[in-house]
């Protein structure tokens, strides 16, 4: 078979004036604008495009379109490009995949000699012994992985997404699809018409029939004049709940691929039919092509597919292919008519070309065999909508069964008719789609707040009064009297499938999994029905009895880049961040936040807070503004302690547990006014606690009058800590008495700070020192911070970061939820069991905590290593003596610059929790050290005199 370019065809889509140069396996080639990569190569006489997976047999053109499994190539850094579909571009670097050292001479083709041993699934039956050799076997097997190569330097190119809400989406732009789009648009619906091909028209594009061409011109003109939005080289890849559609657009001018997400009110599925290959001996020789491939090559690109052809025709498309071939100069050696009992049995020739075809018992010299054996209905979108298509043996294909009423099928998927019949069915489908869309639109508009007003009653759901399409009889042609390839890309033959079925892998799903048939790049669009037929044959059943596999999204593959789109991962910083950056900060990532970890010397920061005064930016601290008369009830419900009698201006610490009694979060909440509270949460828990609060209010207590506003970022938060903090605050605060009597520990005041009104000030802190926690309207955060720094220079004021705070909180023995507690730590294990008030009516976690109250539980305890210079890792296990029995673990550890020794928090078994207990800590190095549990959590100032000061 030698393909070659012929004279100008009236239907061709190439611009012969625009020559494009490209490379194929390093050699120079050229084609024309409008060529696909495959048509350009075919026109230049190339016959082999790839090698098969297992036997590395040469593969030529089969269908010459997107689904052609033999035309997978690498273009630059883009692997697995469909050369049957991808348009040629100037300068393309195209390479074959799956061949070594070259496409023409491939070492692994030697596998063909062992075909009889390499039956489907053979690898499950061998390579088991010796066991130590399996990794080597595996490496060899893995070299058979098909496909292109990843270039790890490929940039994550710019991919945007589009969202659209059309009334009607039409998937498929053949004559029925176009008519559906036009009719729906004519009824006033907004319509998106999605064409998988590079131009609309479906099978009319490659028909040389004059009436077909006239109809195509008419449809195109009508589309141009309509309001229908047309996407070409785009595919509806998935239909999800409620007609949520994924559409991949491959020809967007600036994106490699674009994902369009459409919420369609009705979906019209008009994908046409996919021509099904026929199974017989030698059906995978280059030179055996489908009738569609022959007609596309001849009519779209002016390529003569071969010199002398046998045409096996079981339908009108086969007949048309014979006529088209003659017109481009291919001699027709014979037409074998599958409708009247004509049969082909095999081809003969080398592995790379056909030289004869055995048909009806005679051998006919030919270099081309064109096969028109029938159709596969691509029912994918219907499958995704829950439909289970039904096989009709008289028409030899599947038909829709009962799709949901907002998904309508038309065109070849729905049945057969002449062109006028298809167009009429398409138009009727479009009208029905528009009418149903109008009803959905009316419903949405009348039920959506702030939507445009809508008149009248909701239109009735339009009944389906379309005249159904007929079903043309078609012979059931799946396999000839010989065996051949069913799955070209996976090298799975009908013999393999029959053998698998006899072995017990006799349902489609089992056979598919065992043989890997239909798992290749076209995902069964060419292979599924032949697979089912082979199994049916082996079982002595019908295709209906065997049934088919479920087609899952995506209908056509789409790139990870298009799916990912742009990266949306916000970075959060406080308003004070510029000051930190200007002051030698070392940043730590804390969830979405970038926070100051330290400013050079955390130990010095600790000493400064203990001796003078320090500032820490705690803006990420979660803050919820709670208003309404029922706030105390809410607090009582979510915290384990009591809240009904908190006075105005008072602050209380609370612990939250989940329904399983496990510690969820902790923090302080203050009462700012009669019905106004501010809840603070841990920084990492800010989002989760908000959801937790809303969840309870919305689902369990919707009648409570509480309004919740997350205000975490509305305020910049600064903790001013240290013995000189009151002196510093007095220099910047107005309107508040800072005296210890007037503004005692665990109270809250509103104040004007550094001229900024509306600041809240809490007498609390995590460091154990006299502290004021300031919440400043965010826009003034930087100003207040700078004012504090300026005003306190003579007091030795300095910033401190998270690390210094962690050291100081550990010195004070404050636990951190999620670090010193874990997913199983019940409330009492924190040592704060006395907070839990089981006499309250109800609160989250009460039943579990009531149960836990009379159990001995693992406890959070403070631990000091016997050697003050050894700091165990925050993961070191507490074990029983020299054994590997785990009795607890270190959860926090630091060297304390205040105490000049190592200090820890840990969790231990109940019987180790008493003060003075000696424990053994296993360091990561393997060394075991002694340590002692101390009486209380605080390593420093256990009486808390400093913070009350």
């Amino acid at each position: 078979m030698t393909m070659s370019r012929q004279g100008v065809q009236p239907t061709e889509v190439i611009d012969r004036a625009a020559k494009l140069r490209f490379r194929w396996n390093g050699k120079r080639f050229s084609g024309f604008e409008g060529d696909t990569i495959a048509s350009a190569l075919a026109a230049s006489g190339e016959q082999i495009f790839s090698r098969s997976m297992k036997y590395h047999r040469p593969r030529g053109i089969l269908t010459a379109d997107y689904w052609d499994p033999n035309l997978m190539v690498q273009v630059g850094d883009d692997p697995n490009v469909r050369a049957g579909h991808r348009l040629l571009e100037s300068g393309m670097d195209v390479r074959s995949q799956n061949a070594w050292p070259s496409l023409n001479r491939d070492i692994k083709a030697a596998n063909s000699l062992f075909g009889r041993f390499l039956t489907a699934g053979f690898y499950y039956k061998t390579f088991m012994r010796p066991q130590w050799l399996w990794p080597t076997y595996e490496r060899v097997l893995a070299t058979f992985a098909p496909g292109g190569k990843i270039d790890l330097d490929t940039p994550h190119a710019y991919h945007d997404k589009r969202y659209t809400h059309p009334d009607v989406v039409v998937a498929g732009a053949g004559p029925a699809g176009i008519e559906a789009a036009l009719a729906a648009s004519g009824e006033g619906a907004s319509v998106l018409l999605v064409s998988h091909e590079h131009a609309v028209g479906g099978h009319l594009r490659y028909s040389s029939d004059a009436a077909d061409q006239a109809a195509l011109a008419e449809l195109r003109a009508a589309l141009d004049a309509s309001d229908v939005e047309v996407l070409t080289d785009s595919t509806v890849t998935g239909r999800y709940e409620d007609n949520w559609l994924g559409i991949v657009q491959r020809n967007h001018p600036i994106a490699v691929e674009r994902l369009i997400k459409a919420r369609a009110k009705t979906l019209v599925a008009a994908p046409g039919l996919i021509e099904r290959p026929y199974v017989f001996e030698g059906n995978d020789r280059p030179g055996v092509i489908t009738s569609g491939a022959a007609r596309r090559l001849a009519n779209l690109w002016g390529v003569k597919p071969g010199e002398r052809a046998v045409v096996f025709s079981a339908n009108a498309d086969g007949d048309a292919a014979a006529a088209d071939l003659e017109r481009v100069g291919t001699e027709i050696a014979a037409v074998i008519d599958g409708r009247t009992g004509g049969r082909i049995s095999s081809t003969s020739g080398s592995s790379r070309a056909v030289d004869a075809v055995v048909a009806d018992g005679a051998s006919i010299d030919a270099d081309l065999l064109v096969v028109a054996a029938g159709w596969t209905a691509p029912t994918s979108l219907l499958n995704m909508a829950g439909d289970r298509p039904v096989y009709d043996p008289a028409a030899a294909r599947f038909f829709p069964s009962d799709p949901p009423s907002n998904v309508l099928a038309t065109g070849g998927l729905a049945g057969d008719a002449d062109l006028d019949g298809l167009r009429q069915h398409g138009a009727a489908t479009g009208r029905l789609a528009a009418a149903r869309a109008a009803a959905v639109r009316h419903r949405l508009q009348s039920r959506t707040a702030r939507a445009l007003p809508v008149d009248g009653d909701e239109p009735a759901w339009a009944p389906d009064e379309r005249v159904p399409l007929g079903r043309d009889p078609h012979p059931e042609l799946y396999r000839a009297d010989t065996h051949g390839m069913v799955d070209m890309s996976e090298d799975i033959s009908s013999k393999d499938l029959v053998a698998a079925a006899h072995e017990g892998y006799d349902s489609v799903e089992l056979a598919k999994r065992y043989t890997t048939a239909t798992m290749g790049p076209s995902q069964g669009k060419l292979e599924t029905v032949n697979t089912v037929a082979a199994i049916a044959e082996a079982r002595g059943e019908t295709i209906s009895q065997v049934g088919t596999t479920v087609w899952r999204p995506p209908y056509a593959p789409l790139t990870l880049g298009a799916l990912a789109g742009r990266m949306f991962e916000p970075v959060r910083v406080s308003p004070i961040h510029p000051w930190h950056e200007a002051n030698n900060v070392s940043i730590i990532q804390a969830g979405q936040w970038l926070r100051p970890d330290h400013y050079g010397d955390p130990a010095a920061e600790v000493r400064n807070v203990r001796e003078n005064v320090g500032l820490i930016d705690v803006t990420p601290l979660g803050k919820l503004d709670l208003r309404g008369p029922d706030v105390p009830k809410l607090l009582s419900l979510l915290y384990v302690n009591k809240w009904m009698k908190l006075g105005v201006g008072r602050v209380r610490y609370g612990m939250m547990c989940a329904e399983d009694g496990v510690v969820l979060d902790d923090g302080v909440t203050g009462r700012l006014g009669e019905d106004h509270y501010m809840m603070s949460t841990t920084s990492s828990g800010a989002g989760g606690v908000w959801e937790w609060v809303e969840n309870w209010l919305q689902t369990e207590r919707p009648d409570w009058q509480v309004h919740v506003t997350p205000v975490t970022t509305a305020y910049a938060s600064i903790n001013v800590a240290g013995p000189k903090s009151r002196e510093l605050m007095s220099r910047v605060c107005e309107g508040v008495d800072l005296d210890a009597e007037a503004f005692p520990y665990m109270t809250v005041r509103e104040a004007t700070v550094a001229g900024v009104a509306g600041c809240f000030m809490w007498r609390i802190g995590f460091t154990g020192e006299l502290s004021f926690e300031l919440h400043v309207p965010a826009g003034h955060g930087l100003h207040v911070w700078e004012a504090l720094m300026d005003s306190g220079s003579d007091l030795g004021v300095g910033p401190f970061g998270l690390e210094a705070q962690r050291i100081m909180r550990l010195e004070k023995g404050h636990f951190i939820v999620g670090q010193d507690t874990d997913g199983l730590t019940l409330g009492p294990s924190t040592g704060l069991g006395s907070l839990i008030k089981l006499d309250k009516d109800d609160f989250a976690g009460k039943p579990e905590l009531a149960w836990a109250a009379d159990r001995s539980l693992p406890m959070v305890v403070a631990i000091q290593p016997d050697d003050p210079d050894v700091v165990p890792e925050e993961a070191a296990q507490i074990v029983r003596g020299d054994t590997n029995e785990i009795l607890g673990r270190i959860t926090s550890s630091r060297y304390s610059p205040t105490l000049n020794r190592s200090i820890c928090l840990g969790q231990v078994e109940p019987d180790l929790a008493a003060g003075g207990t000696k424990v053994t800590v296993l360091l990561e190095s393997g060394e075991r050290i002694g340590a002692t549990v101390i009486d209380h959590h605080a390593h420093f100032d256990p009486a808390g005199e400093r913070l009350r000061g």
Partner: protein
Amino acid sequence: MAGLAGRLRKRPPKYSAAALAWKGLRGQSWPRVWRDCDLQRSYDAVVIGGGVHGLATAYYLARNHGMTNVAVLDKAYLGSGGSGRNTAIVRSNYLTPEGVAFYDRSVHLYEQMAVELNINVMFSQRGHLTLAHSDSSLRTMHWRAEVNKLGGVNSSVIGPDEIKKECPSLDTSDHPRYPIQGALYHPPGGVVRHDAVVWGYARAADHMGVEMHQKTEVTDILCEGGDGPDGKGAGGRVTGVRTNRGDISTPIVINCTAGWASLISTMAGVRLPITTHPLQAAVTEPVKMFLPTVVVSGSLHVYVSQTDRGELVFGASVDPYANYSVRGSLEFTEGLAGHVLELMPGVSRMRILRQWSGLCDMTPDYSPVMGFTPVDGFLVDVGWGTYGFKAAPVSGEQMAEAAATGRTPKLIEAFALSRFDNGELVGEKGAASVGH
């Protein structure tokens, strides 16, 4: 009589390279991998669910306890549920000593499986990396590593440079939004050909006389003496099961039905603290091998490995809502792709070929429920959530022992249903692969 003849089969041929060659030369076909049997009226035990757990249980009942008059019932085909939908990862780097001991035994059984079952399950112990993108997750990795070491499991925390060495395609620079700070590296972890495990257990069980019945749906569990309606519920005992192919009498019913576990248990009047959530997965087109290890990122909610066929297989966290639907969502693939590209920007041109989902039976403490129930003769092996596949061999072994001896084996004591009454939960939240 057909059934009896079916049971008295001669030993089928072993799989081996020599047998492949011999049959290839002679053009002979292989016998059925398991028999098609008539459904009997009575069995010594009935296993509901023909996935890896059910099949492994049946296999060990026959192999370790000589119970061969056993039927495995599946409403569809063998391996049609989670067994064929999971991402086939096997590892033992868990967080609790109970979890480590249990999964370590499972890894050990997987290592021997190809030889023991005489089918190549392709256990590829290529190494397993759990990435940490924050200091808190790195702290958890250290914790796991320490517990693993004490349990005798090969597992350690490695830094970005070593990660790059093990897996060059990962972006270990500080460029990603959440840079990789370290990883828990677990060399014995890897992937298995999950379908082969299903077929291997079925074939081996079949050889010993166990019957596999596909397209056999259990519609009720027959009980007597219980405190609920129809003799179901606590204090009662199992007498049989009702199926779409007729009633079967049996004293032992073992529920191995994963996503449908709570529905099946309700048939015996046993309520389980289980909700069913879909877990989605996707696979790309194949490319030449470039990803040598299994990679998991809890923070980015993704796990990925490359199959020997060259495809990337992705999984993620369970969907946040309870649901029995196994249709995938578009949002899942979008989120997945975004996270994968954060880890490996170079794969942006790989194409997603197929997405699917499976059903996970989630328990409150992310640990399974195994063993006896208040209904005598009704055993459960459920609540396997997102990690059932990797536990199949040891679960089957232990469940078979429980069913055959009537005693709870020590290894699964911690997973008893009664723990939800006495509060002794087993927390594996931290080590379930992602997103819990």
